[in-house]
């Protein structure tokens, strides 16, 4: 294409190029920035939550201007705490971890790694982004309506979420907007996934057999399938919930409810039905957040170990098994809900079964490093950090998977520790690893390694400092979603909460290092070469950033698998996928 032309056309071009673009590289970056923005907002919310948990009476002057009702005099009300919690969880799970690793990196890299010019359906792709964008707008708009965001957490259990404003602040308009936002998000995610699948199946370069696909592509593909199957169910659930709220139906509202003294004239609904529908989506969803992360980590570990990804095939089979089994374990979130205990036990066994492929992935990552020549770039450090927190978080899952233990641990901070370790941290570590890795390709410049390493150390140590103690809170029986600790047995835990708050503030501040590194490098960083990390997959064969048509010389032709590092007898220690060089032995 060449330089941007200056002229009267320029404005229109800008809009077409960066706003309503159909270029997968632009859309990928748009998704990425959306996730980054959501993450920063959600992180700020977690700061306020943490401050309130450590010092319930602390005055935050800014807050009272932001929300006079939610924080009169700058002191958070209990209901506003729950509002912040809901938005924190919703943003993080949906708009950060479902967006960045899949829609962000996926959109940018999938065609590049497949050797395709574009996503299969570019306009659908654009639609997917703008739907997601609208969803984010609707979600955040709840902050600016009179009764504030909903207070039901990211799980929105009925009937609390179904009976309307009578059940509490935020349950009027706020909850309805939340449902609308999630419904829009479902739509956007499904549209994007359709595109991912069509692209992976239909737009691969010559020679790019399924056995030559990088693990990232496999992960994006399998995740897309899971999104397709699970988000539709959430959409159905949202539809029914919305009907209960505004249509006067009673899908989830049982007969004879008396809420704050008022008899609700509805009949016969099933509150547990919501939980079944929600978790049928919800459990696959947590793996939807982690599968792309697994792909990214495998990719990066292999590159910086200068060694073929150990167990390429077993990794694929594990991801398939995880994807498949994840639709059969939703009941493990409902052990104490009053579900049939025999069913509960069946869910426990299946849950343990899904831990097996997860353990295989860990083995594969360790195997990749074993015998390698490890290069400790920032990206690699975050990948290593990922393995560490994934093990920690996965092992706490083994407690929760046993019904008798979950009876004690359910809805305590132990679960909070589990979900942050394995999802919050592992997920964001993968995003960070991917960012440091692909930033040169995405923006044509290198990030600062020095700032990056500082960011890693503070985040890694900080992460353990925040979330390891939460396990202990769980042992003590500290329930989650508590706006303050007033019970006698909880009061002694306040110092621990303060420690966690301080750790969270420091760790959060460390993210500013990342953000400033990011934006500084975007404009001022060193110019990136085509293949700064000596990687083998196709994205490294093109310039940084890639030209609009991706492969300006025509379709690449693939001769090798994606992880030919350390090939004996080869001149360099890596053989690129499109290199016609023969590999002896193999």
């Amino acid at each position: 294409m060449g330089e941007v032309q200056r002229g009267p056309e320029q404005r229109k071009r800008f809009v077409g190029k960066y706003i309503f673009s159909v270029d997968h590289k632009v859309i990928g970056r748009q998704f990425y920035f959306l996730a980054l923005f959501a993450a920063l907002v959600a992180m700020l919310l977690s700061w306020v939550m943490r401050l309130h948990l450590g010092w319930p009476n602390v005055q935050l002057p800014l807050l009272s201007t932001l929300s006079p009702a939610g924080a009169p005099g700058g002191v958070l009300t209990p209901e506003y705490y729950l509002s912040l919690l809901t938005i924190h969880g919703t943003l993080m799970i949906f708009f950060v971890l479902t967006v960045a690793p899949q829609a962000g990196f996926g959109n940018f890299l999938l065609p590049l790694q497949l050797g395709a010019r574009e996503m299969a359906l570019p306009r659908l792709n654009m639609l997917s982004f703008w739907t997601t964008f609208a969803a984010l707008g609707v979600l955040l708009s709840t902050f600016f309506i009179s009764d504030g965001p909903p207070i039901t957490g990211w799980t929105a259990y009925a009937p609390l979420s179904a009976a309307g404003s009578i059940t509490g602040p935020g349950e009027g308009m706020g909850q309805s907007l939340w449902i609308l936002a999630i419904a829009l998000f479902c739509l956007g995610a499904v549209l994007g996934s359709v595109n991912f699948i069509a692209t992976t199946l239909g737009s691969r370069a010559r020679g790019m057999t399924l056995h030559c696909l990088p693990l990232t592509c496999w992960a994006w593909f399998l995740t897309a399938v899971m999104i397709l199957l699970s988000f539709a169910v959430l959409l159905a659930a949202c539809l029914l919930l919305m009907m209960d709220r505004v249509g006067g139906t009673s899908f989830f509202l049982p007969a004879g409810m008396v809420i704050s003294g008022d008899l609700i004239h509805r009949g016969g609904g099933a509150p547990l039905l919501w939980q079944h529908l929600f978790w049928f989506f919800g459990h696959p969803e947590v793996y939807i957040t982690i599968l792309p992360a697994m792909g990214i980590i495998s990719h990066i570990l292999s590159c910086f170990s200068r060694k073929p990804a150990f167990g390429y095939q077993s990794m694929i089979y594990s991801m398939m098994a995880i994807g498949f089994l994840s639709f059969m374990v939703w009941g493990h979130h409902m052990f104490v809900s009053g579900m049939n205990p025999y069913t509960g036990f069946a869910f426990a066994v299946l849950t343990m079964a899904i831990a097996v492929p997860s353990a295989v992935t860990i083995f594969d990552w360790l195997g990749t490093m074993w015998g390698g020549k490890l290069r400790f770039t920032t990206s690699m450090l975050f990948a290593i950090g990922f393995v560490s927190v994934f093990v920690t978080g996965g092992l706490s899952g083994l407690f929760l998977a046993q019904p008798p233990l979950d009876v004690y641990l359910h809805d305590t901070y132990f679960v909070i520790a589990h979900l942050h370790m394995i999802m919050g941290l592992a997920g964001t570590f993968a995003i960070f690893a991917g960012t440091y890795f692909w930033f040169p390709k995405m923006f044509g410049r290198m990030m600062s390694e020095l700032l990056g390493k500082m960011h890693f150390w503070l985040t890694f140590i900080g992460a353990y400092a925040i979330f390891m103690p939460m396990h202990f809170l769980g042992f003590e029986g500290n329930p989650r979603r508590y706006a303050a600790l007033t019970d006698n047995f909880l009061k002694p835990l306040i110092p621990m909460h303060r420690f966690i708050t301080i750790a969270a503030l420091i760790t959060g501040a460390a993210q500013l290092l990342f953000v400033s590194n990011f934006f500084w490098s975007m404009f001022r960083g060193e110019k990136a070469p085509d293949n700064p990390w000596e990687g083998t997959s196709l994205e490294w064969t093109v310039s940084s950033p890639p030209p609009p048509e991706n492969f300006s010389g025509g379709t690449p032709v693939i001769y090798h698998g994606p992880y030919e590092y350390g090939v004996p007898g080869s001149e360099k220690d890596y053989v690129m996928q499109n290199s016609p060089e023969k590999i002896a032995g193999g």
Partner: protein
Amino acid sequence: MGLAIAVVLTLITAVSVSLISAHFWWFPVDVATHGPAIDHLFTLTFIFTGAIFVLAQLGLAYLIWRYRDRGQGGKATYLHEPAMLQVTWTLIALILFVGLAFMGHRTWAHMHYTGAQPGALRIEVWGEQFAWYFRYPGPDGRFGPIHPSLMDDSMGNYLGLDRPHDQASKDDIVTATLGIPADRPVQLILRSKDVIHSFFVPELRMKQDLVPGMEMPIHFTATEDALNHDGGRYEIVCTQLCGMGHYKMRAFLQVMTEKKFEQWLKQEAAMQ
């Protein structure tokens, strides 16, 4: 850098393991007869996961240190997929993990597959935003019917009883504290007036949701030992997000001797 991260990983492992084995922040005493089984299961799981935790984290640390690029040239080991090793590993993981699931089966069965023993003391536990009520059937051993339309907290008719008309309701006793005798099987029937709540007493190792429109029975026996801690008084907390007051929705469980319990119930009956 490789050394640094190996050291930090080792430190994290050491600190985590020692804090856990120091039991400094730990479970409260257990005062239910099924408690020891659960605690035992906890211990086993701690040992099992602890071993994997140490092995995996230290293994990671070792690999990082051992295989760091020492800048001496040469290449990494060219290795793809040793199939036998993988199959072995997968099978081991399968057996261990699924075995763990079956280990907990007996405890779970004891808690949930069977109902309460006959002759257990039956008590209804009611949750509402944001309070607890407990109902004893009184001398006739029967709970009177509930009329949602009559529920009125300001009149003190928390559960919507129609005492003038319903025979079975007449002697029902509604309390704000859950009083139980030690060493006698108790069956709780959990019910909710409005949204979902959850009944949790850490010392009983027991948690169950209260779902509106459903009746959830659970059963347990408090040990004699329950009388000895905190005067037999334990906090009942709500652990299912139920609205703005969720964090302060609590009541007390009072474990008493059989004699004291009878007295207490009489007192409460007189106050109805």
